[in-house]
């Protein structure tokens, strides 16, 4: 009787532990995390009919490259959404370039139009202008880039990417900030992961900010990076990244010279420096 009892207890323990382990494994598989990697056009605006200026609609546009991580796999997918009147459309074939975006507009898996926008600076903001065709009508579109709270994990990702792709510069930059390096990305293979973890916990650390800005300086297709660089340029327009950003916005000036009237001072300074390249 005692043997039987012991056997039963052991069986319960084995079954319970087994089920628990399976539950944890499957639970881990189900865990997918996602975060914005590159932000394109993102904000509220107006779509005004090309034929009739009184025919307009409030719109809301969002386009982004989103990093999706599961237990076994990472994927970066570009997605977009358009709210026009009371209808919500999905944007596919999203292309996020340096200060420009394009996408095709879908409703229930049927293409109903397309949108193309270019960005330009106005004071400390960024605006988008372009055209959209929707259900056979053409609209001029104006959008004000919205502000979002950038998560610490997204900020840390930028520092991580800079150190992964430029270990020498990453180390030099941390030294230039005048503090100890977080770790040595040149000799330590695990350093970039440690930088990610450190910067996630300390996003406003001077080294993390410097690394993030350096990554943003070479990643100007990201609207949030352009916003970071604009902040730098309004204080010091001679930074190299300002020249690169100036070149991005200059493409829009060539299409619509009138935007210079309300452009921020740093942009005028950069354009003067670019000189004959206009």
């Amino acid at each position, binding site marked *: *009787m005692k043997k*039987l*009892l012991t*056997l*039963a*207890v052991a*069986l*319960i323990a084995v*079954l*319970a532990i*087994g*089920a*628990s382990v*399976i*539950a944890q494994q*499957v*639970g881990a*598989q*189900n865990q*997918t995390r*996602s*975060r*914005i990697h590159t932000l394109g056009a*993102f*904000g*509220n*605006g*107006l779509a005004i009919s090309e034929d009739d200026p009184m025919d307009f609609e*409030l719109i*809301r546009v*969002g386009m*982004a490259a*989103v990093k*999706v991580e*599961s*237990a*076994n*796999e990472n*994927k970066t*997918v570009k*997605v*977009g*959404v358009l*709210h026009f009147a009371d209808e919500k459309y*999905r944007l596919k074939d999203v292309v996020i370039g340096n200060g420009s975006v394009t996408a095709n507009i879908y409703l229930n898996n049927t293409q109903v139009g397309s949108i193309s926008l270019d960005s330009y600076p*106005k004071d400390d*903001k960024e*605006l988008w202008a372009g055209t959209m065709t929707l259900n056979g009508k053409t609209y001029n579109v*104006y959008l*004000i880039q*919205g*502000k*979002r*709270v950038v998560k610490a994990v997204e900020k840390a990702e930028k520092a991580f990417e800079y150190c992964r792709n430029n270990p020498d510069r990453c180390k030099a930059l941390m030294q230039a900030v005048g503090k100890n390096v977080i770790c040595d990305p040149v000799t330590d293979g695990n350093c970039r992961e440690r930088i990610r973890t450190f910067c996630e916990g300390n996003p406003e650390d001077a080294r993390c900010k410097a690394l993030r800005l350096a990554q943003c300086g070479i990643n100007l297709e990201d609207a949030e990076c352009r916003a970071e660089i604009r902040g730098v340029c309004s204080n010091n327009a001679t930074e190299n990244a300002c020249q690169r950003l100036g070149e991005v916005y200059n493409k829009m000036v060539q299409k619509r010279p*009138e*935007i210079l*009237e*309300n452009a921020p001072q740093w942009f005028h300074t950069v354009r003067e420096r670019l000189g004959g390249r206009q």
Partner: protein
Amino acid sequence: MKFAIALVLIALILTITISGCVQQPSGPPTGGLTQEQAEQKALQTLDQEMNALEEMTLEDLENELLQQG
């Protein structure tokens, strides 16, 4: 003997209950993400961000857009 049988039954019920709470994910058996699953998750994230975007009235927009001349 009856006690042992009762214990085994409890164990079986526990196992079935716990297993029932665990839903196998759809998609490839490797546990990887299909493109469609990744896009759905990405859209969900973008939607959340857009919901957090500050509502603007037509008046706000007019002011912003008229200022640029």
